[in-house]
């Protein structure tokens, strides 16, 4: 039995336990219930967890684990595995992995982060509802090499069904009480000790982001970014592009697009990246149904064909008439150009009497991978508004 074959049989629910002689003691051999003895009551090494994750995700390069924990993050009585991992081989540890066991499947959600060496302080029950939020160090400005500091902020991911989603805007009080004061203190200290340095500017970017996300000032940092956009040095113009994209107002976007024709090709490179990030930074959520009208079934990695996805209309949102069909992308990350065709006439797939938009996507071009916990659809409305929808899936190899 190959590893891949074994995982597929796990996914199909044919076997619960791993033959020890083949796999040794791995987490899938133990109970994931929160009742001891369970997977959390056993001592694992980071190497074992890395091997486990590599196996269940079918990762194309060995996964290195910096830190991990088993905890009931969503208070459902089942343990989840939370790990900070590296796919790069350079120990960058830029990804959180959350593994939940659903029946006999392992569903893996990946969240981009930034150099997380330890999980200490990365999850907490901020709402007091028993469910843990994930505090995700997130890049605000691009990596510009060792000589230039990178602005970061702490995004807060909360539970939406079975997935952790960016819910930062719901935690304004937390940002105001826990994040803003320390950022202001750091900024003030740097202004006093290192005036005129880029460290001060990075601290300012971080503080302004916290002001925006906490609702205190939705355009904090705009005037500074606009001044940087016309600054003499390219580094500040690159920083400006990132900040302007994050702010996302009309004035910010105008300046951002202006940087796309900057005489310095480096500024153009990073401005293009900032423009591309807009779809992920600013979007309206839409509800999607994968394979509507049929019982939930796994997505097979080897299947060639189409995956129907319905964008659900509501009383205030008419999907068939509002969505710019040609803009739709769908798949493992939501950027996959997998669109085949849409039924632009609409079809009521959920019985609410409102026509929904059903589109079909190429299953191979969607680029799903083993363990993918969700599928993402992205696109635009005809008025230019970015949209995104996400739904849980089960991926199997056969």
């Amino acid at each position, binding site marked *: 039995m190959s590893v891949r074959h074994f995982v597929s049989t796990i996914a199909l629910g044919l076997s619960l336990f791993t033959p020890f002689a083949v796999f040794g003691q791995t987490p899938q051999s133990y109970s994931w219930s929160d009742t001891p003895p369970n997977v959390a009551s056993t001592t694992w090494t980071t190497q074992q967890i890395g091997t486990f994750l590599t196996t269940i995700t079918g*990762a*194309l*390069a060995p996964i290195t684990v910096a830190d991990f924990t088993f905890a009931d993050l969503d208070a459902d009585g089942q343990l989840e595995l939370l790990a900070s991992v590296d*796919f*790069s*081989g*350079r*120990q*960058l540890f*830029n*990804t959180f992995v959350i593994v939940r066991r659903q029946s006999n499947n392992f569903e893996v959600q*990946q969240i*981009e982060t930034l*150099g997380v*060496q330890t999980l200490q302080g990365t999850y907490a029950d901020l709402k007091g509802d028993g469910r843990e939020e994930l505090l995700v160090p997130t*890049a605000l400005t*691009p*990596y510009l*090499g*060792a*000589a*230039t*500091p*990178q602005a970061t902020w702490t995004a807060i991911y909360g539970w939406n069904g079975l997935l952790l989603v960016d819910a930062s805007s719901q935690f304004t009080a937390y940002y105001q009480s826990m994040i803003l004061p320390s950022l202001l203190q750091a900024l003030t200290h740097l202004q006093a000790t290192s005036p005129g340095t880029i460290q001060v500017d990075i601290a300012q970017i971080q503080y302004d982001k916290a002001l925006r996300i906490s609702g205190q000032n939705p355009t904090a940092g705009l005037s500074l970014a606009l001044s940087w956009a016309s600054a003499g040095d390219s580094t500040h113009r690159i920083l400006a592009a990132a900040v302007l994209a994050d702010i996302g107002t009309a004035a910010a976007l105008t300046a951002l697009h202006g940087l796309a024709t900057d005489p310095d*090709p*480096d500024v153009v*490179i*990073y401005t*293009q*990246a*900032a423009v*591309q*990030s807009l*779809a992920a930074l600013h979007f309206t959520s839409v509800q999607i149904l994968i394979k509507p009208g049929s019982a939930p079934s796994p997505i097979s990695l080897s299947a060639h064909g189409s995956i129907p996805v319905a964008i659900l209309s509501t009383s205030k949102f008419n999907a068939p008439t509002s969505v710019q069909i040609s803009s739709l*992308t769908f*798949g*493992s*990350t939501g*950027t*996959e*150009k997998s669109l085949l065709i849409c039924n632009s006439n609409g079809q009521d797939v959920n019985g609410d009497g409102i026509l929904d938009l059903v589109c079909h996507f190429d299953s*191979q*071009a969607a*680029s799903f*991978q083993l363990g993918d916990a969700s599928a993402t659809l992205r696109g635009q409305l005809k008025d230019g508004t970015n949209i995104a929808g996400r739904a849980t899936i089960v991926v199997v190899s056969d």
Partner: protein
Amino acid sequence: MLPKMRSNRPVGAIAVLLFLLGLGTPRAKCQTTINFGGLPDGTLVTSQYQNLGVIFLSSEAGGPQARITGGAIPGPDYLCPGPTGASDQFNGSITLTFSSPVVAFSSSIADGPTTLTGYAANGQTQTVSYGGGSPHAALNLNPSFVITQAVFTGTFYCVDFVSFTGGFAIIMPTDNAKFSLTDSTYTATSPITFQAGPIAASATVQWTAQLNYATSGGRGSFQDLRNFTTDSTTTTHNETYTSIGGKVTIQAKENGSNPQSAPPITIYVVGIGIPDADITMRLVNLYGGATPNLMTGIAVRESSYRQFITRSLFSVSALWPTESPDGGSHIGLMQMPTTQADAWDWTANTADGTHFFLSAKVPLAQHLTSLIIKGHPGLRQLTAVELEHVAVCLYGAGALPKLSQQYYAPVKTASGGWDWAVNSSGNPQGVAYTNYVFGHLR
């Protein structure tokens, strides 16, 4: 440099007493007396006695102005603060800086309230003041003394002589000296000479040189401990630091009938500016792929082509290994995970980075693209340079694991087939990183 012993003129009673005490010790300590004899009138006294281990600096307004004078003040040669060589009211100070600590010090002030004595602790700054009419209290060992007027009395103050006795101390290297990796293609220091003295004829000196390094965030910590011995015959010892650097704490202990330890000193083994041409040549030689100078672009992005940059570490500003902004999880030209070798040996850093690229990233790029091609019938193979694009994207901070997050992604062609397109939407930062690298090849 060992101080010469000289005493060619009568000195004050207290100084004589100190002199005798100095001679009375069983050790080979030398008392050095400087009486300024032989210098022409009007001579500005600064470094004339550097070979005896002391430099003079006066603080009179207008710069160093302590000069030799004769005349009204008894005796042939005195050091006076006057700008013209004539005796002058001494309103400033004269600082004596010794090349190694002294255990005894005295001076005689002509026309003043007689004599000052004392010694001071290494690392402290003590002031020997006069004008108050009484000898100064004993000071601690100190490599620097300041003779100054505590109370202006309107009388002349000229220095008749100074006398000092050196203690067992580390003579070489000097405290806080920096040694760069100048040799062996910028991976090793020149030989660093260690010497301590004075020591008794039969004594030996046991040395320890403890090197410590860690990044500003405490990453990659390592130590290097060296023990060696000198004696009265073999007075010096050379050490070379290769592929290593940091803060070195040096201790010397004299073993013999009268064992004693010298005040410890600290030196720093630091980096050096490696010529860009040397870096380029090495990176091109190491790689040999479709884009021969591809590694140079990575080094530009990762480190601005600098194995070492000027920054503060151990509270010392010097050329230290180029750290990643997170406190040094990654280091050097190619920003490899921090290790001793990758921090201090640029040849190891470039070799490791290139090897990692060739052995891990290129094969992974090939594997990923083959999987993408498998899922998109008719999709062509990538060219060698295009494959390098994918591999560079996987090297950088924008490296992402999914098939749809690589540098290229398949897109439908007008004829219904598949072709590759730059995956700007699937991995914006990875694409930006890669484009920057290819835009800065050297």
